[in-house]
Structure formats: C-alpha cells, structure tokens
C-alpha cells in the first residue's frame, strides 16, 4: 500500500487541499491553494463569542479554502457526510481498503497525538487519513512534521463530535482534476476578489477598517473595563498567533502566494506586493510582542501605542490591497 505523501503546512485546510491535489497529480503549493481561494481576511466580531471573548478571524470561515480553490480552478471533489458513525467509519475503511486516502473533518480536541496545550474544542480541523496499520489509522495531519497514528475509538469520536461546526464524519477526495488551468486568468481574479473582501467598505469590523476598529476597542476597554484589558489583549494575541497559524502566519502564506504568482506570471508588481505584505505581517508580530510585554509588566501599559501599532498595520495592508485591486 502506498502511503500518502505527507507535507507539513502552516495551516490545516490549505495544507490538506494542496497535499491532496498534489497526490492526485496536480502539483500545488500550500500558498498557491490559499491565494487561489481568496481566503485572507480580518474580522473582529464582538457578537460571536469564543469563551466569552470576541471572535477575531484572519481568514475566511472553515470550508472556504476548499470552495475557493474549486471556484478558481474547477477541481471536482467527492464529499460526503454521514448520519451514523458506524456507516461513516465503514465507508472510510472501504475507501482506504481500495487504496484511496481520504480527507476528513475532525474535532481537534479528540485527536490523541495533538499536544495537550494545543487541544481545544474546534471542530473544523482537516487532515488526511492515508491508510490503516493494524487497528490504527495512519494520519497525515499537515500541522505536524511527520505522520501520526490515531486509534479507531479516538478517530470515531473526532469525526462524529457534536456541537458547533459538527463534522458529521465529513470525508472527501479529489474526483476529477481540471483539464488545464489558466493561471493568467485565475490568479488575478482571485487576488481582485480578495482585495474586495479586505476593503469591505460598508462593514466597520471587517478588513482594514476592522483592524482600526480593534484598536478603538482596546482604548475603550481600558477606559470602561480596565480589569478586562489584559484578558482581551491575551486573547487577541492568542487568536493572532496560535489558533490555526494566526493572523501574521496567514499574511506570510499570502505573501508566499504573491511571490509564486509573480514568478508564474512574470509580474514584478506582485513581487513588490509580496514584500509589502511581509512587512505588514512583521508589523502584526510587533504589535503582538508589545501587547505581550505590556501584559507581563515588562513595558508600561500604553493603549495609545497599541492603537497606533494597529493603525500602522492597517495602513500597510491598505497600501498593498490598493495596488492589488488593479492587478
């Protein structure tokens, strides 16, 4: 039985999609998948709570990477969900038996190989199941350096966990690849689409204005609820750096996509934009560093400074996307 070619990625969904396309004969990098799906975003959503704190998203909702790539290059997926866990496990075993590795959606909390501190209740974690080894499944989870083993009981629990974004055993593989891909059309289209999303002119909490909005929230929190300031800052940094490769991480993935696109289309403008987006990502990290120092008391708490840093980020991203809109 040939093992699925594992490749570590920065993010689970883009990694799974890139690895599955590559395995089925369409070599594709993780950044290219992420870029083609137009999934970069910023959104500060106070009405959606995560453990009592607002949801801060740096990329589009789970599922959008797969859908976005499908829209951009026309690959067809065979995807199914299951009502019964038994049927879902049998279907997966049958596929693996036939030598077909499958992508699945799981609840990351229940995966036994995930380190304790990385486990939380997030039910849209994607990975590939390569084949069976005895009673265990060999799993290509793109967040990890190597493949991992998962026992059948944990696998069933992770695939059929209930709650928000319940996976319902969701399982997929590539059905047909596109005949040929017109990158000269698909790439600029995907970039313009993403530029539009980031501009989000009528939604103050999304895109560049969302970044400035978050700066305002930090100021307001200090004024009105000073005891909640540190938890809020900790939460922002955590959402930015940890959860699913975080905000800065996504900026760097997109920058890598722009660079690859620049080479593919011989377009110097994209290479310049790539550099500028790397700078924006570095500003995000500078913000995280300052916020953390202030929380730990290694630097005087200064919300005006944090607000200013976020505005620098917003300025940089505005400049990048203004150029990309006209690609």
């Amino acid at each position, binding site marked *: 039985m040939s093992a699925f070619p594992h490749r570590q990625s*920065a993010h689970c969904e883009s990694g799974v999609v890139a690895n599955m396309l590559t395995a089925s004969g369409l070599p594709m990098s993780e950044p290219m998948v992420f870029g083609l799906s137009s999934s970069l975003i910023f959104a500060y959503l106070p009405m959606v709570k995560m453990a009592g704190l607002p949801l801060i998203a740096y990329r589009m909702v789970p599922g959008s990477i797969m859908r976005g790539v499908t829209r951009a290059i026309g690959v067809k997926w065979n995807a199914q969900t299951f009502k019964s866990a038994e049927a879902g496990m049998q279907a997966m075993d049958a596929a693996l038996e036939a030598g077909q590795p499958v992508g699945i959606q799981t609840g990351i*909390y229940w995966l*036994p190989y995930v380190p304790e501190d990385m486990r939380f209740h997030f039910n849209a974690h994607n990975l590939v199941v390569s084949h069976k080894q005895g009673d265990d499944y060999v799993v290509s989870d793109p967040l990890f350096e190597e493949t991992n083993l998962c026992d059948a009981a944990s696998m069933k629990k992770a695939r059929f966990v209930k709650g928000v974004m319940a996976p319902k055993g969701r399982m997929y593989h590539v059905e047909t690849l596109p005949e040929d891909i017109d990158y000269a059309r698909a790439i600029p289209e995907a970039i313009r689409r993403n530029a539009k999303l980031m501009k989000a002119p009528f939604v103050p909490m999304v895109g560049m204005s969302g970044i400035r909005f978050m700066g305002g929230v930090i100021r307001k929190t200090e004024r009105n609820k000073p005891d909640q300031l540190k938890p809020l800052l900790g939460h922002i940094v955590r959402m930015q750096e940890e959860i699913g490769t975080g905000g800065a991480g996504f900026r760097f993935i997109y*920058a890598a996509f722009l660079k690859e696109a620049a080479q593919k289309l011989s377009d110097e403008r994209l290479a310049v934009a790539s550099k500028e987006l790397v700078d924006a990502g570095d500003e995000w990290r500078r913000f995280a560093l300052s916020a953390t120092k202030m929380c730990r008391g290694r630097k005087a708490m200064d919300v005006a400074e944090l607000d200013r840093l976020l505005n620098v980020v917003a300025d940089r991203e505005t400049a990048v996307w203004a150029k990309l809109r006209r690609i």
Partner: protein
Amino acid sequence: MKKDEVPQDNSRTYGGHKKLLYATNEDGGLEGVQSSGWEVETYATVSAVEALEAQRDAALARGRAGITSPLEYHMFAKRMDMATLTSATGYGAWRVKRHLKPHIFNKLTDAKLKPYCEAMDILPEELRRLPVQEPGESPEVPAESKA
C-alpha cells in the same frame, strides 16, 4: 520576517513539535521554515490554559463544598464552557444550569446523563463523582480518562 529571524523558543506548549511558517529567504523568495515556538505565543497560550485551570479548580472546590454539581468540574476539566457544552449535548443553557445544582444533578438518571457522557467521553459514574485526590501542590487531574 527573515528565515534566520524565525523564533526558536522551544515552547513547551508545542509538546516537542515544530510548526511551519513562511519566511523570506536569501533570494527574496518565501519558503516554509519550522519554528519550535515563539515566547509571545507561548505566553498567550499558557495564560489561556491557566485561566481554564483556575475555573476548573474553583469548580472543584465548590463541588467539594456541595455548592455545585460535579458536572461543572468535568465541564472545565474537558476545556469546555457553557456554549460548548450546550451545543455538544443539545441541552438548553437553562437546563445545563439546572443540572449544575447538586440536588437536581444527583437525581438524574443515566439516560439523562448520556448526552454529557457522550460529549465528554466519560462514564456516568465518573461524571457523578469528583476526583478523589486532594487539590494540593500537585495539580494532577485524574479526571482525564483519555490521554
């Protein structure tokens, strides 16, 4: 971020693993580089985990004092909160809150506890009791039935 600036802070939260991120290389391109962690991220993760553990320990103390049912302790021990638990069990928030009262929780049948047991992957008898060990210096949590 340049390739040689990728943080390698050996974060304990990574459990010995490395994550991948993209950084600028010598030729001005970007490539995947492994990172063993960044202190800033570790601090945020550890703070969040500590906050959850504090909630769990407080629930344990209240449970021992008979003010709250063991359900609250097990909820936090499984890193869940009210929203996670209600969506995973299908019980409404008012109902879960009711089940946090010891005199009501103690009368619940196995059938009523089943959604909780499924969501947390524990047995009814485990759900009904609190960990035996005294909360002393070692914050060992025996309730993690599955590693």
